[in-house]
């Protein structure tokens, strides 16, 4: 996105339409507004887990989740609702294209006592791993639904090839409400590990994917931690040349193990721990060994951030870290924990 989300006109307009009066950060205000609503649900209906909170929030927001696990199920749901006069379901196939994980419809023919909305969650193939977060994302839309949004076609600010800022905002909101501090904080103490994360996932949100729970819990963990997702990739200059087919007569570059994403939690940011995106993973790192499968799918080692070399030749800061790495499909997830 060319501008920061908090500077985007659509986001400021949404804040205004919600009756908010942000001073300089509408994103923060809107997130707070959504958190207040979810906390009100929790106060009215105490929940034991995040999964319970998800179901309760859906009920309070008057939507029904329908998961689709196969093409046949999709057609079945489509026919069921078309027969009820819900004409928008004619578009269900088109709506649930590869990059679309969920869609929410407002019912046109809801009978008395039926919920006003229905959220279709696409769980076919790899999309199943995102189902938990997709549900929260749909609820984020409902938490921020305004009268003005009913005339969605009036928005003319989304431009070609630009990720919609409101969608980006919904991801932020979903990230906050799906791992609500009230549930997580008392557990997210001590040394972080993949085992501890799995235990919490079972306890609080068993329907969340492993990756989703690693991201969510790491973010909330009290002690500093940077979550790295590593996979094979190229330098930016190499990517540009590959896209231009500039290597036709030259040797193509070799993909190397690089950081796809690096998310530092608040404590890590405060401690000044920073790992740039796309930096190469040091050959000596346990991350490399887990990736190449020399050990069982996970391992840990004490390393130093100064081993990490940037493209300009400089290194990251001299900081001893405990690295816990775990294979996740084609990638490796790693918890980088400063040794203080």
């Amino acid at each position: 996105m060319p501008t920061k989300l908090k500077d985007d006109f659509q986001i400021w307009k949404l804040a205004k339409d919600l009756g908010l009066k942000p001073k300089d950060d509408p994103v923060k205000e809107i997130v707070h507004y959504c958190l207040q609503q979810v906390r009100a649900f929790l106060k009215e209906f105490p929940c034991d887990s995040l999964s319970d909170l998800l179901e309760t929030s859906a009920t309070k927001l008057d939507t029904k989740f329908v998961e689709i696990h196969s093409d046949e199920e999709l057609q079945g749901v489509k026919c069921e609702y078309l027969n009820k006069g819900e004409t928008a379901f004619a578009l269900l196939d088109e709506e649930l294209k590869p990059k679309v994980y969920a869609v929410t419809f407002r019912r046109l023919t809801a009978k008395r006592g039926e919920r006003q909305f229905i959220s279709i969650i696409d769980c076919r193939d790899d999309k199943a791993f995102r189902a938990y977060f997709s549900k929260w994302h749909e609820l984020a839309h409902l938490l921020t639904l305004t009268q003005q949004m009913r005339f969605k076609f009036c928005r003319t600010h989304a431009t070609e090839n630009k990720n919609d800022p409101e969608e980006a905002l919904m991801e932020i909101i979903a990230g906050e409400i799906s791992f609500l501090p009230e549930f997580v904080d008392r557990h997210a103490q001590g040394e972080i590990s993949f085992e501890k994360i799995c235990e919490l996932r079972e306890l609080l949100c068993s329907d969340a994917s492993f990756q989703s729970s690693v991201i969510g819990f790491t973010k909330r963990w009290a002690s500093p931690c940077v979550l790295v997702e590593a996979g094979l990739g190229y330098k930016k200059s190499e990517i540009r040349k590959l896209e231009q087919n500039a290597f036709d007569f030259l040797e193509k570059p070799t993909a190397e193990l690089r950081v796809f994403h690096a998310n530092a939690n608040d404590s890590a940011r405060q401690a000044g721990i920073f790992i740039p995106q796309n930096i190469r993973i040091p050959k000596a790192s346990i991350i490399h060994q887990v990736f190449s499968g020399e050990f069982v799918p996970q391992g840990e080692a004490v390393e130093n951030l100064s081993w990490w070399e940037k493209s300009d030749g400089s290194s990251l800061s001299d900081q001893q870290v405990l690295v816990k790495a775990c294979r996740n499909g084609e990638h490796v997830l790693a918890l980088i924990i400063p040794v203080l």
Partner: protein
Amino acid sequence: MPTIGDRIKEIREDFGWTQEKLAEEAGLSKGFLSDVENNKRDISSTNVLKIANALGASLEYLMRGEEKKQETREPIQIPVALSKAAEDLDLSYSETLTLRDTYNSIIARRSSKSLKPPTVEEWKHLYKVIKKAVPPDADEAKG
């Protein structure tokens, strides 16, 4: 005046469930559910939530019954592209509004693609897809 018990019974019967089935799905005893439906016992909001979740029903309706809808007159807005498409397809005003309402009923999607208002061709495509997919008697269901 209908009570919570009356509404629970109404929705349960619409769903085609027995009391036993609903009680099992909601994690309640059949005896308790029967008493509630027969207005012999009160029910906590937590248990109404369980029933709403089991039936996929509106919690608001079960708790409070039909809400009086405020009559608000909103200006009818038809985007230029839809208007052009409707003209090309020779749609009636009512058909045009139905097409607009159908599109607008898709209120949220989780995707990374950008959202743009439909073009004339996209409105026409939407109309054709809907016309092809909607069974002839679906209009009766809408009534």
